[in-house]
């Protein structure tokens, strides 16, 4: 208790809790890292163009095209690598937009309370009960197909999850004695936000954002598959869309490769996000954190 400065050189717990990843989390992180690297370095790692035919159409994987080619003879490996860019942009963009927007709404609703809170909560309820896919299809159809539109449309439906979680957190924080103490010292909203709310909310919001990213990538693929994606982009969903749109699928078996690899990439990324998100969730919960 009353140890002097000298006595306090005993082994101390680390100042900040470290996030410990499980093997699943590590796998997820590795895969995501790899995908990011591939997406960024796509021109370097791909020996072939992702737009021009470089081999025979519908080739099976071989030494030159180790994922095969599409109906025009364009290298699939290149397409998957470049497609990762679109998927990651959509995932990250949606996650950031919905995450920050949702957190802002959550903080506002939770901190202000009263009619602001009620208004936000009703809006969230409405968005939750609306079947999102049909609305997204309609919106995408009206706003025109582009990556930006897809991000906006996905964000418009995704912020509610973050907002709900953040609001409940702020509500419970507001009752904490140390927050009340800060308020009694005369702390304003900005101070509380900066020093108390944001540090508490950030881990929560980031977990939400990881989840949103996975959801957004799948949703983008879905929209693209339905033909509502950006036709000029070659996202994974678009590749699948083209593969399934190929009329010759009834005559040849090779189109299966065309379908398999984008699907595999999509599944791997989404699974990795889910695994990573699970680990972060544990880290964000103070009760689970090791003291």
């Amino acid at each position, binding site marked *: *208790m*009353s*140890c*002097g*400065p000298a*006595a*306090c*050189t005993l082994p*101390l*717990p680390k*100042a*900040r809790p470290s996030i410990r990843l499980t093997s699943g989390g590590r796998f997820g992180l590795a895969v995501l890292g790899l995908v990011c690297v591939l997406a960024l370095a796509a021109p370097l790692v791909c020996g072939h163009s992702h737009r021009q035919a470089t081999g025979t159409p519908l080739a099976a994987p071989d030494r030159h095209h180790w994922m095969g080619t599409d109906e025009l003879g364009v290298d699939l490996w290149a397409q998957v690598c470049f497609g990762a860019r679109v998927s990651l942009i959509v995932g990250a963009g949606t996650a950031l937009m919905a995450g920050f927007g949702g957190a802002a709404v959550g903080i506002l609703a939770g901190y202000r309370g009263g009619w602001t809170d009620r208004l936000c909560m009703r809006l969230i309820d409405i968005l939750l009960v609306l079947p999102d896919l049909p609305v997204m299809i309609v919106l995408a159809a009206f706003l025109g197909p582009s990556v930006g539109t897809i991000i906006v449309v996905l964000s418009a439906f995704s912020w509610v999850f973050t907002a709900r979680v953040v609001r409940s957190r702020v509500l419970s924080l507001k009752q*904490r*004695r*140390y*927050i*009340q*103490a*800060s*308020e*009694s*010292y*005369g*702390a304003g909203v900005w*101070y509380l936000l900066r*020093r*108390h709310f944001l*540090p*508490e909310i950030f881990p929560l919001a980031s977990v939400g954002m990881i989840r949103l990213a996975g959801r957004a990538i799948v949703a983008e693929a879905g929209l693209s598959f339905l033909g509502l994606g950006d036709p000029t982009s070659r996202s994974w969903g678009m590749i699948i869309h083209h593969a399934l749109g190929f009329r010759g699928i009834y005559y040849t078996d090779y189109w299966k490769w065309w379908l398999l690899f984008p699907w595999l990439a999509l599944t791997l990324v989404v699974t990795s996000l889910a695994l990573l998100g699970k680990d972060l969730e544990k880290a964000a919960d*103070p009760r689970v954190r090791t*003291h």
Partner: protein
Amino acid sequence: MLAVKDLSIIYTGVRPHVPAAMNISFSLAAGESLGIIGESGCGKTTLALGIMGLLHGADIRGSIMFQGRELTTMTSARRRTFRWRNIAMVFQNSLEVFNPVITIGEQLTEPLCTHLGLSPKAAHQRVAELLALTGLDPRWQTGFAHQLSGGMRQRALIAMALGCEPDILIVDEPTTSLDPESRQAILDLIETLQRRLGFAMILISHHLPAVQRLTSRLMTMYAGRAVEYGITAGILRNPLHPYTRGLINAAPDFFPFKDLWGIAGAPPKPGTVEGCAFAPRCCQAGHQCTRQRPELAAVGVERRVACHKGGIETVLQAIGVKKSYRLGERKVPALNGVSLNVRKGEVVALVGPSGSGKSTLAHILVQVVAADAGEVLFCGRPVHKYTATSMMNGIQIVFQDPGEAVSHRFSVLDAVREPLDIMGWQDRPRRDRKAVDALGAMHLPISPDFLSRTCHALSGGQRQRVAVARALVTDPAVLVADEITAMLDPSTQAVMLRELKAQQHERGFSMLFISHDIHLARKIADRVYVLDKGSIIEHGAVFEVLGGSIHRHGRTNYCGHV
């Protein structure tokens, strides 16, 4: 009978001169008794000797009127006729009072022969009577001073003083160094003698129960000056000068369960301080106090206080506070018109069973919760949302739960510095230093390593200390401690409360100590409020409400049902 007016006694035999008693005024009617209290060296005995006319090498100014005759201007020969005959003194008990080589009997006979002109035989007879009167076997006449016990010597001293049947008896510390039984016997004796002989009395004593029992009026002296004067019972129940309160609060006879804490600091040498002599030790000293000396002024019926602030100030006041909580359709009353006040520098306990509304009241006082009705005043001004808590020298609260006391993400230094950051007090290095000082005051380590530790890595006791340090960093005038040790183990609790009390004692802030534990309240508090079902059912000094040794009537039954 005796009227002392503006009496000043200055010892001129030493350089610089020592003004041992200054501007003392009081009057004493026949049969009345006046108590004089004060720390050692405050001029009590000097005053007594001055009235007796036994001081040499002292300059005496002002007037002492005895039965219409001025004593100060009399020749010493004429004065001697009054001494012993009319004004007698029971000296402070010690071996040196008596001549060690002359028997007690002879020493008692001497004034009888000189003043009353009795023959040796008659005087001898009278001494035997006197000794019997004071409960001492007349055979002890032949004894020497060193052969008598302390109690017997005290009786002999009283007998000597009463020899000439004086009109006024000055008794100087009659019970010091006596065991409780003899002390009681001596007090009984003085009381019966006064009733029987009807003399007026000036009692100088440190022993407050003696003063309480034997005197009707009381004067507190500090550094040679009277700082409070009034009716004994009134002063002891409700002292108005911080010094008088300090004396009473330090008395184990009144607060048998409380930890011993005297008045912080030491009295100055008389005459060395400009302004109020008590200012350096006072919890409410202001600018005026250090510059100008306060005069003894009337502040109420039969009460005079020498204080620029007119006595101890009230710092926190709740008037008719009401609060009810809504529980579905039902309204659950939590407080039904509670009023309390906390004065400067005192520890007030608010006790009551769980659910009596203690915490609600605490939260209303710091405005974390809004009251339905009633008012909270801080230094006489109404408190609006956080006005009193968001300033230096304001009100601060420490909450019950150490787990919630500080943010678990903050480092220790950040947590303690937070109030200063929010209030924008001075600059960063000074805030850091102040925070480190506050941590040091609560006996927390101040190594860089500890300062940068996050609060979640602290134990409950440490966290609560950090919370207390955080409250103290703003130098609050009032600290509201809401069950701060309820979740700690007894040892941690004891250590922490002692440290907190030490801080309170040193800095002189007021504390509202909220607890359901009356034993703790008795240990730490000066006054107590008992809250039950949202109403104050009792309040007063701790010894009155929660029981003490001489006030066993303990009016409350709170002790019973907890």
